[in-house]
């Protein structure tokens, strides 16, 4: 049975009608029109659907709306804007990272949480932190350059 849920996304409150087991991904995309998290696998294996929930990277394809509650959801659109970019967004543009760009939610949202908690990470630490994400176009080298560039910006 469909139920009413309240949630806070990118600083705004919303109310949606959904089946309790509906993954957050579909609520964001179809009910709120926030298309940036993408469906990649629905299995939590690729990262294309990643959002922050209370600052932690989460696979929105696997998180039922009923478990989101009052926690704060942030999507790529809420991470930064062209006027006030997150350092990773700025670095991604400067390094021209993506080929198709379908995977970037996972890399940017995961790396943003990692860089917030890990100042001046080593190459090996960055690689390990991002090892569960997928990029099919093979932009790994550019991703590494961008994350290192952002890490330098974030001090």
């Amino acid at each position: 049975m469909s139920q009413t849920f309240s949630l806070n996304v990118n600083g705004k409150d919303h109310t949606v009608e959904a089946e309790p087991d509906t993954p957050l991904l579909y609520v964001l995309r179809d009910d709120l029109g926030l298309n940036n998290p993408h469906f990649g696998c629905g299995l939590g294996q690729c990262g294309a659907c990643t959002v922050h929930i209370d600052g932690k990277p989460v696979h929105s394809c696997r998180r039922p709306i009923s478990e989101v509650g009052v926690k704060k959801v942030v999507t790529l659109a809420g991470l930064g804007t062209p006027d006030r970019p997150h350092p990773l967004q700025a670095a991604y543009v400067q390094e021209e990272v993506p080929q198709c760009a379908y995977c970037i939610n996972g890399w940017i949202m995961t790396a943003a949480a990692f860089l917030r908690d890990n100042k001046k990470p080593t190459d090996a630490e960055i690689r390990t932190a991002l090892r569960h994400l997928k990029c099919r176009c093979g932009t790994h080298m550019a991703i590494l350059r961008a994350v290192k560039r952002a890490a330098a910006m974030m001090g």
Partner: protein
Amino acid sequence: MTKHEKSANFSRRAVLKAGGALVVSVGAPIAFDSARAAESDPAVATKPALTPDQLSSYIAVNADGTVSAYFGKMDMGQGLSVAIRQMVAEELDVPFASMKLFIGDTDTSVNQGGASGSTGVQDGGKQMRMAAAEARRVLVEMAADKLGLPADQLTVKDGVVHAANDATKTISYAQLIGGQFFNVHLDWNGKYGNPLYAPGKAKPKNPKDYTIVGKPLPRQDIAPKVFAQTDFAMDIKVPGMVHGRMIRPAIAGAVPVKVDESSIADIPSARVVWDNGFLGVVAEKEWDAIRAARRLKVEWSNATPPFPNQAALYDHIRKASTRKREVGEQIGNVDDVFKTAARVIEAEYEWPFQSHARMGPGCALVDIKDGHVTCWTGTQKAHFVQTGLANILQIPHDHVHVIWTTGPGSYGRSDADDCVADAAVLARAVGKPVRLQYMRDQGTGWDPKAPASIHRVRAALDASGNVVAYDFLSKGFSRVDVDTNGSQPRDTLAGQTLGVALKSGDGFGVPGDSYGFANKRTAWETIAPLLDRASPLRTAHMRDPVGPQIHFASESFIDELAAALKVDPVEFRLRYVKDPRDVAVIKAAAQKAGWQSRPAPRNDQRGDKVSGRGISYAQRGPTRVAVIAEVDVNRSTGKIWARKFTVAHDCGQIINPDGLHHVIENNVVQATSRTLWEEVKFDNKTVTSVDWRTYPILDMTEAPEQVDIVMINHPEIAPSGAGEAASRPVPAAIANAVFDATGVRIRRAPLSPENVKSALS
């Protein structure tokens, strides 16, 4: 529909209306004189028909002086749109920033073949360059008329025509034609797709005068994507749209015999669409469509499991009867020379099925309204999809509008075109616009596969160790079991499940190299598919179709010859390679990598962790690439780290070195993934590689430490493809490096820990 898409469509429709007005006027009687006058007027108010022989089909000067170009190929994220804008702006002498490029919309561009065969710049750019040069020529002639000066005394800067020796005499492109359309005929060769070519009378610029081509201008589409402002194909929505999902059998070849709709009766708005082997569901909410597809009770026909066990795959290929054989290069008398050879060296190599496994499974939105169809898709070939929709829906071609919209990375004939056809069948059945997205297991398990193959190579040596004959044969599944685009229903899962007559094509390929062996034969043989209809192992084009597998074999074998003769692998190649540009890339890679001459293997390492280096080179059409890999091998785990690559790349004239660098780098990393990890697994019932655990690809800990790229620029040589060429030498470069490190030759891909361990033991 989202805001972004609306605004883009609005301008396209405005253009369309003008085209419509022209059709009406053509139907009315036109006096001979006025028809001639119209023909001779290079600027007209209404857009001429969208045909390849009209300049207006490629270029328009807007009222504000900006230039719009319309391109019938797609940019799959490799920066092609920047390169095309550079080529057009260069020839027209307009600022790069004033150029807009519209790509892949069947209402505004002609069929230039879509993203196909690395021809974006090579063929597509060539045509756009010629069209832009002709537009400039026509504009300068118009200016000559207006200014009362001969055209050869005029020059153009930033879209303004100047008298060469009187700066006060100027007229801008906008003043000459702004807001009107070119009415100029081009000399079209009558072909559509990649070979479409329609030059005018103008000659393009001399490369020495370039100011825009050759510059590292950045892509403009990245920031909107990084700030989540871009709509992908998956993001488009239209009013009244429902979500679709497809249902595939657990045993390939089975068809539904009983479908229990009551099993999903409690899911709001869920509906079943079942016709012969075609089975899907739709629902208003996406999650409901997914739940319905999972829960629907289906009884399937008793199909005999169609596949051999995976372990028997290569034996199957060896024993299968040949359906078609073709010889590529044939020089001298190979068979006779082998009879008298002092020594014969031979080897056989194996390459598995591989999956496109795109980041996002196929997705398409099809809207059928009043006999007209609109489709949003991330296909590589929008114009062929237009034909496919017309065919499967039996609707006139000009009633179908396909709007290419950026999608998840695309590397050939993926599931994108299957998805369009499935969405069309669903939309027709339910009478509503349908957005269909495949699930992950379908994106990996049911996409068309890169063909599995074996490759037999032998060489005859004389008593002095010279190669006197070379014989290369590939045998495998066809690269065109289903064709390279979805224009025919028989090549889509929808057509095949609905029961259309099949026509499996035959094609493979031969090595691209310039080894000048006195006697040389390269050939291929194709075999029938394992299951002829709606097969999850149907085969088609995947990035650099059959290039990685063929050159894994051919360039591993060249290395085997060098090792058998105890000759340095670079030196050995240079003995036989004839083409000077091939020599140049091999030398450039070796120099950049600091290659020291010695034969492989090293034989100086002990312990579990060993390192090695390997070289490989190949031509792909007029492009040539040499790759040196430096790898670390863990003998006990079988794990390989392709630590460093050095690439030398020559694709003639470089349009944008920045874009080219990214394209090469990404090619190398993706090809490394295919070499080290990628293998479609199956049992006798179906494909069992259905997600990222069962179809692993390279992860970040396995990415190289360094990729050095030498880009050799030849401004005087026509630009050739770069989208795929760097993929093909990578597998052999890695395998050759593993041999150098371990002394063991691995002839079966992928070089996964499992395969490497078994080879080393």
